[in-house]
C-alpha cells in the first residue's frame, strides 16, 4: 500500500502546481493612458481560419493606418488577437479571458455560433462589440452593445430575392444550405423572402459543416427541376459543391450570397465557378476607388487578395475611430448609444470605404453589388442602392 501513498502525493503536488501556474499566468499588463486596447477574438484555426485570417490581417492594417496618422484622439491603438478556433466553447473561454484585460471595444468573431456566445459576455461587461457575423438572430435580442459590419441576413436576403425575381426571373429555386447557425438563418430568411415573391422552393437541401461529398445534393437539385440553385455554404464547402456540380454537368443557373463568389471559393473551385452569379454586400472588386486602393495595399502587404471579411475588419476599426472622435472621449456606454441610428459617410471617415448606416439594433445598411464570375474572376455587374429603411430611427 506504500505505492498508493506516494502516488497520491505526486497527484496532489501536480494538482497544486497546475493551479499555481495558472494563477501566475493570469496577470494582466496595465493599460497605458496613451494607448487604447482593442480585443480581436476571431477564427484563426478550425473551419473559419480562412475568413478569420482575412479579418485579422485587415484589422492589423487598419490599426497601422490609424496609428500612423496619430491614433484615436491622440491615443495609439493596441490590438490583441485571440483565436476562437471556430468553436463556440473555446470562444467563450477566450472572450472571458480577453475581457479581463478591460478592452475599449471587442471585434469579431465571424462565425455566428461563436458570436452568440460572446455577445452575452460583452453585454454583461458593457463593452461595445463589432462582429462580422450574418445570422439574423444576433441583432434581435435587444443587446445594446452588438453591431455588425456587413449585412445581416434579414437585409441581404430581401435584396437577393428581388434579384432572383426581377433579373433572373426564377420560378423555382433549389436551396442548398449548411446546417449551422449561419446557414440555417440564411435559409430561413431566404425561403421567407422567396415565398413572399411567389417563387417556389423546389428543393430544400441541408448539408453538414466540413462536408466533403456533395454528389447526392447535386442529384437532388437536378431532380427537383428548379430553374436556379441557390447555395449558402461556407467557403470550402461552396467550392466542393461547385466542383461536384460541374462534375455532374449541372446546367441551370447557380446563384449565391457573398460567400459563393468570394476569392477563396474562386481559388479553390477554379473554372467550376464560372458563370456563378450572386449578390454581395462587400467585394474587393467593387468599382469604388477606396476599396480598390484597400485591396491593392492589402495584397501588397499579405500577398493575397482580400475577401469581404477583410473589408469588414478594416471598416470595423474605422467605425470605432469615427464614433469615438465624434464623442471626443473614450466612453463605452456612450459609444454604443452613438453608433445606433447613425450614418458614417466616406467624407467623414474615408476608412469606412463606403457610406454605412446603423439602425437601432446594430444592423447595417449600405449599397451592395451584383456580381458574376467570368474566367475565374468576380465581375461587378450592378450596384444595388441602400435599402434606406433603418429600423426604429
Amino acid at each position, binding site marked *: *500500500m506504500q*505505492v*498508493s501513498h*506516494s502516488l497520491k502525493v505526486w*497527484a496532489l503536488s501536480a494538482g497544486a502546481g497546475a493551479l499555481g501556474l495558472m*494563477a501566475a499566468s493570469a496577470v494582466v499588463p496595465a493599460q497605458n493612458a496613451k494607448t487604447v486596447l482593442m480585443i480581436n477574438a476571431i477564427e484563426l484555426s478550425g473551419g473559419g481560419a480562412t475568413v478569420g485570417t482575412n479579418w485579422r490581417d485587415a484589422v492589423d492594417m487598419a490599426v497601422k493606418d490609424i496609428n500612423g496618422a496619430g491614433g484615436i484622439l491622440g491615443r495609439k491603438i493596441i490590438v490583441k488577437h485571440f483565436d476562437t478556433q471556430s468553436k*463556440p466553447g473555446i470562444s467563450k473561454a477566450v472572450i472571458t479571458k480577453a475581457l479581463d484585460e478591460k478592452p475599449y471595444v471587442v471585434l469579431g468573431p465571424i462565425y455566428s455560433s461563436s458570436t*452568440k456566445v460572446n455577445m452575452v459576455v460583452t453585454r454583461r461587461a458593457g463593452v461595445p462589440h463589432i462582429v462580422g457575423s450574418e445570422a439574423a*438572430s444576433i441583432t434581435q435580442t435587444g443587446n445594446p452593445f452588438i453591431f455588425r459590419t456587413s449585412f445581416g441576413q434579414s437585409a441581404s436576403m430581401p435584396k437577393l430575392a428581388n434579384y432572383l425575381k426581377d433579373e433572373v426571373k426564377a420560378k423555382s429555386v433549389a436551396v442548398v444550405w449548411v*446546417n449551422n447557425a449561419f446557414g440555417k438563418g440564411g435559409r430561413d430568411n431566404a425561403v421567407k423572402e422567396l415565398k413572399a415573391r411567389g417563387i417556389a422552393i423546389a428543393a430544400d437541401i441541408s448539408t453538414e459543416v466540413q462536408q466533403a461529398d456533395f454528389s447526392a445534393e447535386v442529384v437532388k437539385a437536378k431532380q427537383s427541376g428548379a430553374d436556379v440553385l441557390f447555395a449558402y455554404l461556407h467557403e470550402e464547402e461552396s467550392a466542393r459543391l461547385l466542383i461536384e456540380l460541374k462534375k455532374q454537368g449541372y446546367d441551370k443557373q447557380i446563384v449565391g450570397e457573398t460567400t459563393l463568389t468570394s476569392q477563396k471559393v474562386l481559388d479553390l473551385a477554379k473554372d467550376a465557378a464560372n458563370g456563378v452569379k450572386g449578390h454581395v454586400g462587400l467585394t474587393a472588386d467593387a468599382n469604388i476607388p477606396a476599396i480598390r486602393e484597400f485591396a491593392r495595399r492589402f495584397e501588397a502587404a499579405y500577398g493575397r487578395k482580400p475577401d469581404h471579411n477583410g473589408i469588414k475588419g478594416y471598416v470595423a476599426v474605422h467605425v470605432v475611430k469615427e464614433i469615438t472622435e465624434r464623442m471626443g472621449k473614450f466612453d463605452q456606454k456612450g459609444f454604443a448609444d452613438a453608433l445606433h441610428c447613425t450614418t458614417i459617410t466616406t467624407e467623414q471617415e474615408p476608412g469606412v470605404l463606403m457610406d454605412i448606416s446603423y439602425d437601432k439594433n446594430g444592423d447595417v445598411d449600405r449599397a451592395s453589388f451584383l456580381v458574376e464570375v467570368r474566367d475565374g474572376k468576380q465581375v461587378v455587374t450592378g450596384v444595388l442602392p441602400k435599402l434606406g429603411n433603418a429600423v426604429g430611427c
Partner: protein
Amino acid sequence: MNAQGFKRLALAAILAVAILAPLGLKNYGVYLLSLWALYAIAAQGLNLTLGYAGQISLAQAAFFGIGAYISALATTAGMSFWLALPLAGLACFIIGALIGFPALRVQHHYLAFVTLGFNVLVFLVLRNEEWLTGGTYGVANIPRPALFGLSLGGPLAFYYLCLALLVLMTAMFWHIVRSPWGRAFAALRDNPERAASLGISIVTYTLLAFAIGSAAAGIAGAAFAPLVEYIDPTPFTLSLSLAFLLMVVVGGQGTLTGPFIGAALVTLLPEWLRWTEGYYLMVYALAVMVLMVVCPSGLTGLFDMARRRWERSP
C-alpha cells in the same frame, strides 16, 4: 499513517487548493476552474465505466449534452435549477441503461461502437429538432441559479457551486468503489470469469456502472449550461467524447485522482503551454503518445513507477 488516511489527506489537500486557488484569479481563471470541475465530474463517471467496469463508452459527450439541454430547457421555462439538476442525472441514467442493456448483452467492446453511434445520433437530434432544442439557434439566456436567496450568478460563486458538485460526486464515487458494489466492480475488472463464478452478474454490474457513469456526465452537463449561459449542439460532438476518454486514460483509469489530473490537463495545459503558441496541441499529442508507450496506466501510474525507481536507487 495508513494508505487510506493518506488518500484522504491527499484529497483534502486538493480540495483546499481548489477552494483557495480562484481567490487570486481573474474571471478567466475562475471560468477555467469551473470547467475543470465539471469535466472532472464527467471524467469520473467515465472512469467508473472504463476503469472499474472495463467498458469503453464514446457517448460521454452525448450525456453531457443531454444533461445540458435538460437543464437549459427546464430552467429557461422557469423550473428551478435544483430540480433540473437531479432530473438531468436521472434521465441520463435511464437512457444509459436503455442503450447499455442490448449492447452489453453482446459481449466484447461493442458498447464502444454503440455509444459512438449514439453520440452522433444525439448531436443530429439536438441540431435538427428545432421545435424542442432550438436547433442550430441553440438556447440563450440560461439563468444561473440561486441558493436560499443567495445568487450564484457571479463567476466565483458559480465556481464554488461546481466545486461543491464535484465534491459530492467524488464522495459518491468514493462510496461506490468502497461498497460491496465497488468490490464487485473490482472483481469484475480483475477477473471476469472468477467474478462470474462467484455469482456476480457481469451484465448487471457493468450496466449499472455505465448508467451511473452516464448520469454523472448528465449532472456535469446540467451545470455546464448555466456556466456558459448559451448552448448549441456544437460542443457535444464525438470529439468531446474522445477528449473525455483521453482525460481518463491519461490521468490514470481506475484511480480516484486520475480523472482530476486528466481533466486538469485538458483545461489547464493550454495555459502552461502558452509559450509554444501554435504548437500546443502537437506537444500535447506527442506527450500522450509517449506516455501511452512508456506507461499505459497513465500519469498516476507514471508517478508510481518513478517512485519505485527512486526507492530502489541507493
